[in-house]
């Protein structure tokens, strides 16, 4: 049975969330609570709806023409699906990192400064410099790029680009960071660095990560949700879910019978 209750007050509380793309239903009545200051992993086979669920948290599904989200999602007790909440200001609080890093065709500095400039987070150039440096440091990229901030962001390596995109998200000073398979285009070394970074960031942020790799989920997450065919099958502390799954489908998936 689905276990969605948490000890602490959750960051997000989802109740019977369904997502339709046109006539196709990608997510069926998902109930899930996401804890603050920790890593929650969403796993499941391709097309199970884990990315769709992730995009519910910052309303990125709004950018898809025929997507429709129903149910209720609250963030710190506040409804975020309602018409009165503005997706633009929501996304300033909920950052996101995508599968393939796509830096803007601008300099490294301008990439990181993109969000702060939009939201007016820095009043002076010195403040902006500080925000950029701080974000790059937290993303573990500062030492590598501090001497070439005016170079185009597209010139960095794949792993560096992914951390640049992370720094870009951090610069807006979000409360939540969503990650959609952030390591899938990285080599093992870059992946290890990214995982170490996530470990360090979880003290400050609520992190939700979609991943294909069960090993990765087991390594970095505190809680794991298993989705299958648009339904939340099981949600538990990571250790328990991987050692003692409550559902036969979870068992089959983590032992590699399908997926």
């Amino acid at each position, binding site marked *: 049975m689905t276990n969605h209750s948490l000890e602490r007050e959750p960051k997000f509380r989802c109740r019977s969330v369904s997502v339709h793309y046109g006539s196709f239903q990608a997510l069926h009545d998902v109930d899930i609570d996401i804890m603050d200051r920790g890593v929650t992993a969403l796993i499941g086979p391709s097309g199970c709806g884990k990315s769709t669920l992730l995009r519910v948290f910052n309303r990125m599904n709004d950018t898809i023409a025929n997507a429709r989200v129903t149910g209720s999602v609250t963030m710190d007790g506040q409804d975020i699906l309602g018409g009165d909440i*503005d997706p*633009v*200001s929501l996304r300033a609080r909920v950052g996101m990192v995508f599968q393939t890093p796509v830096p803007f065709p601008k300099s490294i500095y301008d990439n990181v400064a993109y969000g702060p400039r939009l*939201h007016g987070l820095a009043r002076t150039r010195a403040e902006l410099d500080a925000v950029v440096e701080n974000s790059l440091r937290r993303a573990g990229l500062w030492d590598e790029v501090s001497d070439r901030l005016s170079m185009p962001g597209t010139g960095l390596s794949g792993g560096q680009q992914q951390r640049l995109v992370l720094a870009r998200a951090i610069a807006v000073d979000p409360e939540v960071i969503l990650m959609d398979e952030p390591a899938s285009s990285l080599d093992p070394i870059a992946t290890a660095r990214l995982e170490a970074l996530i470990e360090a960031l979880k003290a400050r942020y609520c992190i939700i990560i979609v991943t294909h790799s069960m090993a990765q989920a087991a390594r970095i997450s505190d809680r794991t949700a298993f989705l299958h065919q648009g339904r939340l099958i099981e949600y538990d502390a990571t250790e328990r879910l991987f050692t003692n799954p409550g559902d036969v489908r979870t068992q089959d998936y983590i032992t590699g019978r399908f997926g």
Partner: protein
Amino acid sequence: MSRALARRKRAEARFRLMGRAAIAFALLALVWVIGSVLVMGAGALTHHRVEVSAMELVDPALVSASDLGAQQRRSDFQDGTQSVLATARLDQYLKGRDVVLSAEQVATVERWREQGRISRGFNTTLFTRPDSRDAERAGLKTALFGSLIMLALAAALALPLGIATAVYLDSFAPRRGWGGRLTRALEVNINNLAAVPSIVFGLLGLAVFINLVGLARSIALVGGLVLALRMFPTIVIASRAALESVPPRITDGALCLGASPVQVVFGTKLPMAGPGILTGSILGLAQALGETAPLLLIGMIAFMTEAPAGLTDPATSLPVQVFLWSDGAETAWSERTAAAILVLLGLLLLINGAATALRARLDHRR
């Protein structure tokens, strides 16, 4: 924070409004262009005729004298009266335009009107007669024939040449080494040729076909050649795009069955690219039909009252006729110019419609 957000929201709304305004402007311009031509040209689609009896002496300012003369020579006066074209002046007066007639003329017209001798009908003259100095007798026959003959010649030359060039560049041209460099130069050359202003093709025609080869000015042959050169790069580019869109797995399949490269191209690739090539070529044809400037330079600006019978006869074309008529000061001429434009636009619509329909049919059959 929320005030900043409100400001950003306003900027967003402004931006969206600008987009809508741009579209509105373009659509308004379209409606204005087409609408003004329609409103002006509609008047010229009808014309007044007057029933004149055989022995009657009529004012040549009211009834086309040359038309009257022609009718009388034909001795068509069986029942004693004959329907004769009203002059542009009278026609404009009857259509309520701003034309001043003398009191005597007004009286005559009123009398005719009471006697029911004035009738308004479809302006067949516009389509069946050649050009004339008198607006009421001016027609598009010369121009239509000229356009037809020149387009036929241009298509006959440019289509095979253009398609052959596209096939060569797509399938047989060398890609590596010096040959590859030549191929790329040729491609760049064709792209540039497509963007060269059409008036330059007129200069080329004047310098080469008329001054160098010694062909006569303003003949259909030179016009057709110039239009063919103009169409050629368009056809090459369209055909190449169509050939490139044939998926390689299909040609690979044919090669695996032991077909030679030439057989693959002519047996598989070209038929599959057919609809695309056809559409592109027809659009090139439409472009050539509207072309004016190069034809002016090779001397197609003369007043022409005879439709060309062959390639070596002087000719004019529909857009050139539009240009020539647009010079006329009276409203009767601007009406006819607009009507000629309507005919031109109608033909273009027909051509484009045919291209779309053909394409849909050929695509469907595959």
